[in-house]
Each structure stands twice: as structure tokens, then as C-alpha cells.
């Protein structure tokens, strides 16, 4: 039953999101433009492996953008269309529905990686270089899970507030920068790097990049992976805690609707 709820929510979410021009822009055009931009930036940098920063970077920025503007923005859209209150009072638990939405969005958003790859290949003739495909898949899977968990924390906080759009705009770009989607976090100031290392996407990106270059030091890979898993578990616990809280909170504060 729960599985059917998650699955049908995923499908509904995908249909809804894809019907929105803004989402299609984020999903299709954004990674293309980012790929071009990043390629131009990295062209003369001496970095030969464009896969690591250009393709992966543009894809991840696109992925993160989609997550920001849909997983989170959807809460607001549903609030304004009056469906948020309907799904809230349905007998299925609200977090399950939100989870379904987020999984749907995240899976669809993975398309950005493919699009930036295709853009790089077609426009600049960059070949797919993936030294350790197995490790890459593991890293990708872990990244998807961590992104899903982060989205659910964000979605939860946004159920409480009506200023969703504003907050989303505020965190989209900084997150890409702090987590090192397009450059190694080692170029950041040490104070900022502390933040980088409590954010799980930082590790997710590093792991994927390691796999692109080829995992030589497997201990290091698994070390980083353990931290990623640990952080993801912590976020999950936070998210569970928050959902318990908001269930009562939203009904006291009346933030499910705009009226």
C-alpha cells in the first residue's frame, strides 16, 4: 500500500513537473547552458579531464537546481492550488507523500547529467571518460539518496513557511559553490570549508569525481563514502524529527493554506 502511494505520487509528480515550462527549462536548458559556460571556463585551465568538472559540474548544478525549484517549490504550488491541505489530511502519512514527490523529481532530474554529457559530446567532442564505472554507480546511488534526504528536510521546513521561493533562490547557487560542484572545495577559504564538510553533497561530488578519474586509493573512497552515509543518516534522523514536529505545528500555525 505504502509502495503504491509512493509510486503513484512519483508518477503524478513527474507528469506535473514536466508540464511546467520552468521545470523543463531547469531540466533541459540549464545543464546545456552550464556545460557551455563551464567548458569555456575550463578550456585553457590545464585541466584535461572535462568530465570531472564540466560535465559532472553542469549536470550536478542542474540536478540541484531542479531539486530546489521543484521538490521545494512544489510545496508552495500545492499550497496555492489548495491541494496541500488535501494531501495533508489524507489517511496516508504526509511524509510518505512528500517522499514520493521528491523521489519522482530527483529521478527525473538525473536527466540533467545525461544532457550535460550529450551537450559536451555534441558541441565540444568531449568523450565520456569514466575510469571506474562501478564505483561511479555506487557514488551516484549514494548521491541520489543523500539528495533525496536533503530535499525532504527542505520540503519539510518549507511546509511551515510561505516564503518558499525566496529561500530557494537564496540557497540554490551557494550550495553549488560550497559543495564544490564545479571546482574542488580546496579553493575555498578554510572557514567556508568547515560548512562544506558538514554538507553531504560535498562528499557525494568528491566520490563521483574520484570515480571519473579512476579510484586508485580504495580506502579513501570508502572512507569518504562512510562519512557520506553517516551524514545522510544524520539528515534522515533530522528529517524524521522535523516531520513529527511539523505535523502538529502546521495545524496550529495554519500555514497549509494561503487564505
Amino acid at each position: 500500500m505504502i509502495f503504491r502511494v509512493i509510486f503513484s505520487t512519483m508518477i503524478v509528480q513527474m507528469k506535473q513537473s514536466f508540464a511546467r515550462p520552468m521545470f523543463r527549462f531547469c531540466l533541459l536548458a540549464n545543464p546545456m547552458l552550464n556545460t557551455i559556460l563551464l567548458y569555456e571556463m575550463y578550456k585553457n585551465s590545464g585541466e584535461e579531464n572535462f568530465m570531472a568538472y564540466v560535465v559532472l559540474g553542469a549536470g550536478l548544478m542542474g540536478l540541484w537546481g531542479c531539486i530546489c525549484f521543484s521538490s521545494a517549490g512544489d510545496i508552495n504550488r500545492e499550497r496555492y492550488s489548495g491541494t496541500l491541505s488535501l494531501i495533508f489530511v489524507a489517511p496516508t502519512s504526509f511524509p510518505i507523500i512528500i517522499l514520493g514527490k521528491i523521489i519522482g523529481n530527483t529521478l527525473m532530474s538525473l536527466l540533467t547529467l545525461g544532457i550535460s554529457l550529450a551537450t559536451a559530446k555534441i558541441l565540444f567532442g568531449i568523450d565520456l571518460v569514466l575510469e571506474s564505472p562501478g564505483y561511479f554507480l555506487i557514488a551516484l546511488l549514494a548521491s541520489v539518496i543523500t539528495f533525496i534526504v536533503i530535499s525532504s528536510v527542505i520540503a519539510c521546513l518549507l511546509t511551515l513557511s510561505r516564503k518558499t521561493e525566496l529561500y530557494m533562490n537564496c540557497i540554490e547557487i551557494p550550495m553549488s559553490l560550497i559543495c564544490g560542484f564545479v571546482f574542488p572545495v580546496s579553493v575555498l577559504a578554510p572557514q567556508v570549508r568547515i560548512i562544506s564538510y558538514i554538507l553531504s553533497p560535498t562528499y557525494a561530488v568528491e566520490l563521483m569525481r574520484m570515480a571519473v578519474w579512476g579510484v586508485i586509493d580504495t580506502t579513501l573512497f570508502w572512507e569518504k563514502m562512510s562519512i557520506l552515509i553517516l551524514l545522510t543518516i544524520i539528515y534522515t534522523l533530522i528529517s524524521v524529527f522535523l516531520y513529527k514536529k511539523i505535523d502538529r505545528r502546521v495545524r496550529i500555525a495554519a500555514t497549509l493554506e494561503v487564505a
Partner: protein
Amino acid sequence: MEKVICVKDLKREYHKKSGLFKKNKNIVKAVDGISFDVYEGEIFGLLGQNGAGKTTTIKMLTTLLAPTSGQCQVLGYKTFGEEKNIRSKINFIFGGEMGVYRRLSARDNLRYFSNLYLIPANLQKERIDNILELVDLKDRADDLVETYSKGMIQRLQIARGLINDPEILFMDEPTVGLDPVGARMLRDIIRKLKAQGKTVLLTTHNLSEVEELCDRVVIINKGKVIYGGTPEEIKGDSLSLEDAYVKLIEEVSE
């Protein structure tokens, strides 16, 4: 007969912050100590002027909003704290063009909500077909809702409200936007539900509808109950229910 809704001295306040820098907190007493009971199988009307607190009351009854104080029970359970025992047995319909997924078809909307209401897959198709027939949306069931007229969206809302075969149906101005035929269809649906032993609590500004449908009503004004009884009792010697209603409202506003 069994008491299915029990409201006692129920209050709900909204806290509104105004002012950009100096935060003034003003409190709106939307519902200010109302009491009423609804029995199984009744069609119960909640009447009152705009802003009287009808929607707020319905939201508390449908587990959407927490009461500030007082008792609010549906089917013997508290709507805040014991909502898990209530939710699958009730449903609600709000008037207007909200509450549907506009980028999906009517059928997809109903299919989705029947999943959320955990209706077994083998029952879903037949139930959805029947409901679509009932609200006269069958021909357009597979078109996207964004291509629907206002009244068609309202019909879809009604369909959605029936999806879990609720024991109690809450309706907040359900006939808003419906054409005369649609409004009659809804009244027929409501009567049919009553014949099946279901309970309906509705708000409306259409008093002839109240006369036609409601077994009992309460009139709320500024969050307080000012009258309760059958439509006949309220009418008394007045020419129409409307006259009697206006008189009651004027009396308390003096």
C-alpha cells in the same frame, strides 16, 4: 441516533503580525466558543455572514486546523491528536477552483486520491467510473483539468470528496459556480448520501438550498452561535427563511 460530531465551547484564534518593523500582534477570534452536535444521518447546515467562522470551523472538524481551546470531536475522536482514527472515514469539498491537480485529467486526479485514501486497486476502477458518471464528467474524464470550466472543476471536487465513500462529508459552499442543473445534481447527491445513512455538514449562502436540504442548522455570527434549530423553527412566522435570517443577523448587530 448516534452523535457523530460533538463541538463544545470551541475556539480558534489566528495570530496576525502586521507592521514591517514594529511587529504588532493582533488576534483574530475567528471562532469564539461555539457548541453544537450533529447526529448520524443528518444534513446539518452551518450558516452565517462572510467571515463568521464557518470555514474555520470546518477546517477544525476535518483535522486541518488545531483548535485553540474547547472540544472538537468527530466520530468520537478528537480532531487534533486522534486524527488518525478519523481521516479515512471523512472527506470534504471546498467550493471554488482549488483543490485539484490542474495538469492531470479528472480520472488521474481521482485515481491519485483513491491511492492516497488507500482504496484497494481492484475497487478503484469501478468506483471511479461510477463517481464520474454521478457528477456527469464521464465524457471529459480524460481531458486535462486545466481545460475545464469552473463548474466542471467543482464537479471534480465533488467527485474527489466521494472517493473514499465517507461516513461524514463536509462541504464548504459546494454549489458555488455550479449551473442550475449542477446545483440540483449536487442536492440529489446529498440526499442520496443521507438515504445511505451518511452525515453531511455543509455551509452555504443559498437559503433556499438550506430549506430544501437541511434537517437542522446553526447560525454563526462573529464566531458565536446566535441561533440553532430546524429551518422551520428559524423561519417562525416570517415570510421566508431569508427574512428570518436577515432579522436575526440585524438583531445581533445592533
